[in-house]
């Protein structure tokens, strides 16, 4: 390590340009560090730009301004209720106590701004411990992309959400497409693009340097076991050495696009990552190599993904969010033609039922693809993936005049499917679903006041009948190197690895395997990214001779 030709020397190196990375860069720069951000792809923003851009932040000041109250003890009890003992209390408290302070700072000092989406309640509102009035989710305010000049062209496009805010219906489908057209014309972005746009602007304002098409590959360690730099590789395959005086922050996303890693760590393979390609577990591999402890490794931000095969994103058929499984006139069945879960649970929870093992028949009966079965009434009412009400069903959607024919077409047990639909229709008549309790939870009628039989139970009776496959998807993985309350990566002895930090999907989620509500991933990613940046900037490492 004696004769390294450093390409550049800075205080803090950040890998990635998503929410975790840019929050880290802002905090580090604000605390006086020189900061270099490296991004592997040709675009800034990662999954964050591609996302709804919503962070979940307990006790935030936007809520207070809207007259909603929140309570520290209640939030902690709520998070613990969801984690089922799988997260450390100190990390939960750290998140709850620091999150709102950081978002106040971002608002006041960095012009990274949000609104409380009043009409978008908490996903688990039906639980006793949940917030009943208001929401802890935050909706990025529209951002004028012209403010970041030419960088605007490099901001990752978002083919999933139109340029509307969450409250304007950007994520739920009741969309005014003329507003969308106007925003597109004027370069006004919302959701994930707005969040990344405003974070990136704050980085530019602080003199943070960003390089594209260059991936962090390997950490360079000093003799005291501390991180002193990084080897990176350009998209042309050229190696570059960067010196980091204070530390390296791994914020380069999860490993959902790396088959070797998903096979090794997850319960089942994510066949349909919903995130953009690029997150290939580079941070995880770098951290493993230097002895990081790992946590939460079998978890991901699960999503029951659907596909319109006529759409491609960066050379892959694009996995989409889909919908239609919450409301009346639809059920979800497994390959045996049987319902197996409450169809309208949160997107993170439904796929967890795909992993159930049947110890008698020795099989995973619910292994994806499972099938959304619906009738013409739903088709006439809702936008399903890209299929608009009123337009004829495209040829990639299986449809048939009878359930028997439909089941045969898609390879599902027909007798069971017919039986299951008859049972479902009976439950609709009696306005109660004793099998899986549709019509009882908040998420299945999220913005309409919560689940109830009228809103969520409706017969499947009007042909033609339709079937769409639902795949095991994920918005990202959330296992990785274990971190402490300052975002420092911990080794197997429980000690921080000096100069090494991680945040967001590149780290183990500090809240464990939970998705508490809209923003449950970006909230902790930004908070622990920020804490990592702040700590790295303030740290003076005990350096070995280089």
């Amino acid at each position, binding site marked *: 390590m004696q004769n390294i030709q450093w390409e550049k020397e800075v205080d803090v190196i950040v890998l990635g340009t998503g929410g975790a990375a840019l929050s880290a860069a802002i905090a580090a720069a604000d605390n006086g560090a020189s900061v270099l951000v490296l991004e592997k792809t040709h675009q800034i923003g990662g999954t964050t730009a591609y996302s709804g851009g919503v962070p979940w932040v307990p006790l935030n000041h936007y809520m207070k301004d809207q007259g909603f109250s929140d309570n520290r003890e209640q939030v902690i009890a709520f998070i613990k209720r969801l984690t089922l003992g799988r997260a450390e209390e100190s990390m939960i408290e750290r998140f709850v106590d620091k999150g709102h302070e950081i978002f106040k700072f971002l608002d006041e000092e960095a012009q990274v701004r949000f609104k409380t989406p009043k009409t978008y309640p908490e996903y688990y509102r039906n639980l006793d411990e949940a917030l009943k009035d208001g929401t802890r989710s935050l909706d990025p305010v529209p951002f004028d992309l012209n403010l970041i000049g030419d960088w605007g062209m490099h901001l990752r*496009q978002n083919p999933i959400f139109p340029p509307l805010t969450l409250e304007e219906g950007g994520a739920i489908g009741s969309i005014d497409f003329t507003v969308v057209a106007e925003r*597109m014309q004027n370069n006004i972005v919302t959701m994930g693009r707005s969040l990344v746009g405003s974070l990136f602007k704050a980085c530019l304002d602080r003199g943070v340097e960003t390089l594209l098409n260059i991936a962090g590959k390997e950490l360079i360690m000093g003799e005291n076991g501390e991180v002193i730099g990084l080897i990176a590789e350009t998209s042309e395959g050229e190696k570059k050495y960067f010196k980091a005086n204070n530390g390296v922050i791994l914020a380069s996303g999860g490993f959902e696009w790396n088959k070797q890693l998903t096979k090794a760590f997850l319960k089942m393979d994510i066949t349909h990552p919903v995130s953009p390609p690029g997150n290939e577990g580079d941070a995880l591999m770098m951290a493993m190599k230097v002895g990081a402890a790992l946590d939460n490794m079998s978890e991901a931000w699960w999503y029951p993904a659907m596909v319109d095969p*006529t759409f491609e994103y960066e050379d892959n058929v694009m996995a989409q969010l889909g919908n239609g499984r919450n409301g009346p006139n639809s059920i979800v069945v497994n390959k045996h033609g049987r319902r197996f879960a409450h169809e309208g649970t949160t997107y993170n929870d439904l796929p967890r039922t795909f992993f159930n093992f049947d110890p008698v028949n020795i099989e995973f009966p619910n292994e994806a693809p499972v099938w959304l079965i619906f009738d013409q009434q739903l088709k006439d009412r809702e936008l399903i993936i890209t299929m608009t009400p009123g337009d004829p069903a495209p040829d990639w959607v299986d449809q048939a005049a009878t359930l028997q024919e439909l089941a045969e077409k898609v390879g599902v047990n027909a007798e069971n499917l017919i039986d299951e639909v008859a049972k479902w229709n009976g439950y609709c008549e009696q306005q109660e679903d004793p099998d899986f309790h549709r019509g009882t939870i908040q998420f299945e009628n999220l913005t309409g006041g919560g689940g109830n039989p009228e809103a969520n139970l409706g017969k499947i009776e009007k042909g033609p009948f339709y079937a769409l496959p639902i795949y095991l998807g994920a918005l990202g993985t959330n296992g990785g190197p274990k971190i402490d309350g300052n975002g420092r990566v911990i080794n197997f002895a429980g000690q921080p690895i000096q100069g090494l930090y991680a945040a967001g999907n590149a780290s183990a989620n500090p809240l464990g395997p939970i998705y508490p509500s809209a923003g449950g991933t970006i909230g902790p990613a930004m908070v622990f990214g920020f804490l990592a940046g702040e700590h790295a900037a303030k740290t003076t490492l005990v350096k070995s001779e280089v």
Partner: protein
Amino acid sequence: MPQGTHTLSVPLSIETIWEFVQDMNNWAPLVPGYIEHEILNENESTWAFKGDLGFMKKTVKLKIDIKEWNEPSAVIFDLSGLSDNFKGGGYFKAEKVSDNETLMTGNLDITAGGMMGPMVNQILVKFVPQTATELTEAIVTKLCEDNNVPV
């Protein structure tokens, strides 16, 4: 109404150009993102291609109805989406400048309908003129190559 027109000067006679343009099989593969086409009869054909919208690619199927074959100067057609809700039309026109110079113009005009129409049209505003330009240029390049004249 997203539309685009592109004109190029070609160092070939109008008859040579007509000869090429009047048979769809000659230029179909030059359509950007071409996947396949099927000629149903003299005036009707179906097409599949993958449009590159910049931030994503979309496979579409459409039908072309030739409205006018005006030898040797124009082919005018209507188009309608089979896989998606859009319609429009276009033309190729050739205008004689001299015995071995012709102005060739390609035009495309596509409007999306339905609920998402206003949004899709914003995307088409860039895509349609770009496709009209690329197709016209590709045809001229092919014509010049086939006839051994510099582009």
